[in-house]
């Protein structure tokens, strides 16, 4: 079970309190009724599904009930950061660096 930091409650809470809510930073077009079929498809159907860092939404549904955004590594499952809805996308390069602390080496890796 993951621990997730809610940027509104400002604390780490167990995954059971949260619900995943899909990819982040996909804004509903303001003029949605007049966009092209292609643009609508991009907006509604297409998702990135990357291996590595992903931007996604979560909801602290059994807590403060707020939706927020997170950067998570889909390989290690580790959260790099979480931030409030409406805040800008964090810098990926910076996030990637932060996500790679010098991994502790054991006796076996000489």
């Amino acid at each position, binding site marked *: 079970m993951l621990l997730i930091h809610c940027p509104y409650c400002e604390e780490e809470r167990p995954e059971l309190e949260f619900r995943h809510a899909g990819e982040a930073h996909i804004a509903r077009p303001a003029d949605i*009724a007049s966009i092209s079929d292609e643009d609508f498809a991009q907006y509604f159907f297409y998702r990135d599904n990357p291996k590595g860092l992903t931007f996604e939404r979560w909801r602290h549904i059994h807590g403060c009930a707020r939706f927020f955004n997170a950067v998570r590594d889909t390989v290690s499952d580790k959260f790099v950061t979480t931030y409030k809805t409406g805040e800008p996308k964090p810098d990926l390069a910076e996030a990637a660096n932060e996500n790679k602390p010098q991994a502790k080496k054991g006796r076996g890796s000489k």
Partner: protein
Amino acid sequence: MTTAGTNRIAGKGRLTPANTVRFTFDGKSYTGLEGDTLAAALIANDVHLVGRSFKYHRPRGILSAGPEEPSALVGVRRDAARQTPNIRATVQEIHDGLDAVSQNRWPSLAFDIGAVNDIGSPLFSAGFYYKTFMWPKVAWKHVYEPVIRNAAGLGTAPEEPDPDHYAGRYAHCDVLVIGGGAAGLSAALAAAESGAQVILCDEKPSFGGALWFEEEARLDGMDGYEWAQQTTDRLAVMDNVRVLSRTTAFGYYAQNFVGLVERVTDHLAAPEADMPRERLWQVRAKRVIIAAGAIERHMVFANNDRPGIMLAAAARTYLNHHGVAVGRKVGVYTANDSAYAAAIDLKKAGSDIPAIVDIRDNPDSVVVEEAKALGIRVLTGHAVTGAGGKLRVASMSVEPKNGGSAEVIPVDALLMSAGWTPSVHMFSQSRGKVAWDEESQRFLPGTYAQDCVSVGACNGTDGLAETVAEALDAGERAAKEARAKAKKSGVKIKTEGGGKWAGGMIGAGPGAGAGKVVKAFVDYQNDVTAKDIRLAVQEGMHSIEHVKRFTTNGMATDQGKLSNLHGLAIAAEALDRPIPKVGLTTFRPPYTPTTFGAIVNHARGKLFDPMRCTPMHASEEAAGAVFEDVGQWKRAWYYPRPGEDMHAAVNRECRTVREVAGMFDATTLGKIEVIGPDAAKFLDLLYTNPFMKLGVGKLRYGIMCREDGFIYDDGVVGRIAEDRFHVTTTTGGAPRVMNHMEDYLQTEFPDLKVWLTSTSEQWAVIAVQGPKSREIIAPFVEGIDLSSEAFPHMSMAEGKVCGVPARVFRMSFTGEAGFEINVPADYGRMVWDTLHEHGKPMGMCLYGTETMHVLRAEKGYIIVGQDTDGTVTPHDAGLSWAVGKKKTDFVGIRGLMRPDIVAKGRRQLVGLKVKDGRTVLEEGAQIVADPKQAVPMTMIGWVSSSYWSENCGRPIAMALVEDGFERMGDTLYVPMPDRVIEVEVTNTVFFDEEGGRLHG
């Protein structure tokens, strides 16, 4: 000789001879000592043969003295319902009355018919499942599978439900220490004395790890095992420490979340009824210290599975802890130093050691000299190439390892040690990457993925002094990292003696090498031999993952704790590639078999899922309701009267509602209060219908879509005030609609001044429907003019009902004039009872969900999720009128313009009239245009709702049919297994088409 077994050595071991325990094995009664495992007590009674193997039904004995045991699996039975198969005899503690049975043998352990598999074994070589039993295909089901299941099953599953209960707890700590040997105890002590909150667990009944058998180890000047007990006692009384024995850390999950299972009663003769059998601990630790030790490997040679052949350190445990000599004439076959200690201990205890066979040419160690000084014959550069005896080892064949004449040496037990494999299981489960250490030929912790550290033998640390120093340092550091205020522990531990874990060999020994057809077992539990692994490579398996699956090596319940490295080395040799290039499979939870009971613990039976009842539940029950499950809700389904079946009850309820009146519990509907200056604007965006102009005191049926234009939910929305709406949702849709609304409000329309509150649990909802509904409720309603003029269909008002505040909706899901009365939940039952008492003499009935379904279908009202399936638009459902034509935006507006949505050929909701006037169609049945076409037919739709309508005097149905609106009057066909049913396409309103009754 004492009473507790012929092999018990007076003066040896730590158990008390007076504390005897009676138990049975295969029906025969034996005596053991308190503190014995079943394995120890059986060996004490000179029983080495304890089971038959999985595939070849070979006689099998006890290999180890711990949880890594692959071979000595037995059934343990407390009573008829408490029969557990595949219990490791080396883990199960004996108690008075313990009843154990051997497995996988028929008719008896000593004479097993299945053993012919051993003779016919070419059939059962690697990949035999894939090759032997593939053709002909039909034979699999009727011949191969029953035979294999019968022959290959390990143990018998109990047939009754598990009567035990299991507990579960969450725990948080600064430092979790896994393993309570010298390393784990030292680490825990250092962390605890630094002030950290510590949990220490070990799978054995008492702490000490290798100190159970390492008699020469001394800590702080005392016997190692004694030190371990004193240290445990010291830790146990500290407020900041929790000590858990008989507790296995079985799974290491994300962010230092570790699953432990504590065995609470399996070792007790008469557990108290309220004790859980096991307890699951879900631990979140800031730091984890893994002190899991190392597991001794066996030697791979012909017939290395004969009962009486076991790991050297296991023999030391039986001797030094249990006071049991595993044999009187004990041979030793080793590739490292540690087995010498076993020979020396046994020799000193009076057993004869005919020879130590050491595969090394020039072992140079004090223990070798010590063994020689005791007069033990040491044959260096030699190998054991075979074992004699069948039900018990009788001899070992010894040859110079590079060839030469064999000598057969009689033995009654044979100890072996190929070296020690560091237990990197938990480290690997934590997603750490192991690395191959060429020098010591071991996989060791490489790159860490979590906040944990390995210490002692599992980290490849050799020697007691080094282990303790490393563990103390790790404990202190973990405390400091987890807790800013940690102090210096000041713990110092003096050590003397202790064994080394390095050295040894991996792979097959001489005599079991390439080209040899002998049965030299690598994996005892799955009967995998060295030859099987070579065969797998020969047949093209080049990765260890493929070899593993082809041979099943390491895939039994012991997960290859003994066999993985041997298997890997044999495959690497056959492939002529270095070991790390062939790869090690990843370790996954659970470390040892874990019961489902522990995993689900309290979450079974009534506690599996919450049960939701409405406030009126007890009254409905008293009225004889039959309930159905709708999600977590219990809903009154129908109210049978004496002599009525469901059909009769529903027919009567349906008639009564239309002729007089009926009362229905609609409490389970979802309810959301939408408040704020922008509330109307928000609903206008969330529903397809227009809401800006809905008057205060008016109701509107609303449809909610997703952005793709498909119906997501529906419900009636009432405007309480300019800035306040009472929204209802479907019963099942309540949480997701709330989530959907919150999502848009928080993330897409955050500027709207709106607040959403779920009020589903706050209101009890009583629907009174039918021609007499007004008459029935009128005497109890205050402050609302109920006349049709003042309060027409689709109105709402606040007032009082039965003296309590109420929101009364004039609405209908039946097509009759009717009311839905919302009162605070706590008053629900009182209002229900009052109205029931009053309405009953007037002819009113109670009706349940089944009647509700029929009545709404008679009127063509849809149920989202029954008449829609997530691909149905409002237009498809015939609800175009509910889509605001002038609206410039709402969720779904763009989706409804997509080419596929506006194209022809969409499935549309229509009514079906069954031509024979009698047959009720099956819901879900497929519809075709031409019943004579070839199979598979082209299906053009399916039946979504179908009932017998007592009010129409015929069956009614709704269906989603391709271009259904253009097929009015057409004949279509519903092919069933036994016949084809003819239907006519109609509209969906079957009763009171003009809708006059609504306004009565």
